[in-house]
């Protein structure tokens, strides 16, 4: 009666479930738990013509754009959250380097609503956000209409249904029932809006751990196509309770990618030559990893599900 395990290597999960041309949701938990390891694997497997979807994916979108994987980005903000602009994004938009990039500009709220509409199974959701803005004029997925109950002007945000959502989580069972805590962002809606989900987990746990707290299950396993055990896979973004944000890494990326040739060196070093996450850790060095470790644990008060 126990369902089959969905555990795969990251390589196999990307290879099987993220073909070129896919619409991929990344960075659903905003600045936390960004699936960098999965993004790097897509670069190594030379994915092309991806549509990247997400409110903000910090420097992961910039890297994938720079590596030539992306033909379209649907996002509220693309750059480097702590350091400013993303140079690859700029090169792509301003000069089509390494290729032409279509940008569909959302605000955070309208992106959240697009995924919420997908999760609720409706073609659109209404909002007042973006009225009067140039986002409304330029993004074809935002359309002004008149509220059927109040005759007010409103914006209809068209539903998005990504082909695959990649969600980095704290813990998951082998069937993909996963706990996320701390920064939730648009993870719950993203999971339901997507046609399939790849879960990348810090820890693989027994189903009983997940079932001990079903309110914390943000991703139900029956929607999950693959579960990948990749501790540290969100670095340099933080994972609450597991490791902190590597601020210096973001600052260095900013400095080291200003010129195209420098970005190519960066990519070679951190992604192409680091053929898996083991190489990546060696590059990073043990001292740095140690610095990011949890210094003080802070466990949640238990909730009693007994009867």
């Amino acid at each position: 009666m126990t369902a089959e395990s969905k555990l795969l290597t990251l390589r196999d999960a990307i290879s099987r479930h993220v073909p070129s041309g896919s619409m991929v949701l990344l960075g659903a938990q905003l600045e936390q738990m960004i699936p960098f390891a999965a993004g790097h694997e897509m670069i190594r497997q030379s994915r092309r013509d991806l549509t990247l979807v997400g409110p903000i994916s910090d420097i992961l979108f910039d890297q994938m754009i720079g590596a030539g994987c992306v033909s379209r980005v649907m996002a509220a903000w693309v750059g480097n959250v702590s350091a400013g602009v993303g140079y690859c994004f700029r090169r792509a938009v301003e000069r089509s380097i390494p290729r032409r990039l279509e940008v569909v500009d959302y605000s955070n709220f309208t992106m959240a609503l697009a995924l919420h509409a997908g999760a609720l199974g409706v073609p659109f959701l209404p909002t007042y956000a973006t009225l009067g803005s140039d986002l409304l004029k330029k993004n074809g997925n935002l359309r002004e209409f008149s509220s059927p109950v109040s005759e007010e002007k409103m914006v209809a945000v068209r539903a998005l249904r990504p082909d695959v959502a990649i969600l980095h989580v704290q813990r998951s069972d082998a069937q993909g029932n996963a706990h996320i805590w701390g920064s939730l962002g648009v993870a719950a809606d993203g999971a339901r809006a997507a046609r399939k989900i790849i879960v990348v987990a810090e820890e693989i746990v027994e189903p009983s751990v997940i079932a001990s707290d079903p309110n914390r299950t943000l991703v139900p396993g029956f929607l999950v196509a693959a579960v990948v055990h990749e501790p540290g896979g969100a670095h340099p973004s933080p994972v609450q309770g597991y490791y902190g944000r590597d601020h210096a890494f973001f600052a260095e990326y900013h400095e080291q990618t200003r010129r195209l040739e420098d970005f190519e060196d960066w990519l070679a070093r951190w992604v192409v030559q680091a053929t898996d996450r083991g190489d990546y850790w060696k590059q990073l060095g043990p001292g740095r990893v140690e610095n990011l470790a949890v210094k003080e644990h802070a466990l949640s008060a238990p909730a009693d599900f007994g009867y």
Partner: protein
Amino acid sequence: MARSETDLATQGYTFSELMVAAAAREIADGELVFVGMRLPMLAFLVARRTHAPGAVGLFENGVLRENPATELLYTMGDPPNLRGATQCGSMLDVMGLLQQGRVDVGFLGAAEVDRFGNLNTTWGHRNKEMQRLPGSGGAGDIACLARRTVVLLAHDRARLCDRVGHITSPGFGTGEGWRRAQGLPAASGPSAIITTLCVLRFGHDGEAHVASVHPGVSVEEVLANTGWTLRVADELIETSPPSHEELRVMRELDPNHFWTR
């Protein structure tokens, strides 16, 4: 900023500290505040610790805090901002409060702001070349839906321009009545622009005017660094300098002037 270092020596505070104090005073006690990072974050902390102990902070990642993280944050998703929060919900939870009209004030930065308080964070200019900027994030939502918005930016003729090239975050559009005509909520819109030189406020017609100039700054300097013919309030005042208490709290939170150079 060499100028601020000079000010610190001669006036006892930096321009950034003055901006933070001015921003903190835009928050009343008990208000719900959409907090940004950097200076607005510090302003929120100062307000909580001085005149507005009941203010509640919201963040776009779903976090709601009564007792703000007192560590230096680089992003709203830094682990110290999640631990000990009052509530960590979804982005939609906090955006819902915003759209309900429950958020009293939101802080915004911008690459460009214009005469009517419209903001551009999508397309910049340098040497006549268009530069793609990161985009709206939550700024456009806050500009549309918060009851009041307060903009913080460095005063620069290229950044305070007559009309922004792209409206990422709507202010008063082209003036009086514009927001309602777009369908934006009646109780919403820009309340103040706090720059390194002055505080701008808005008349009924939606146009910005200088309401106060910072100590040591002349009106002429403000006008010369503004990209349109800026109106001046009939009763122009000087921006109040940060109080001892405000400075004490700021420096306790930011002892190395990381945020307030």
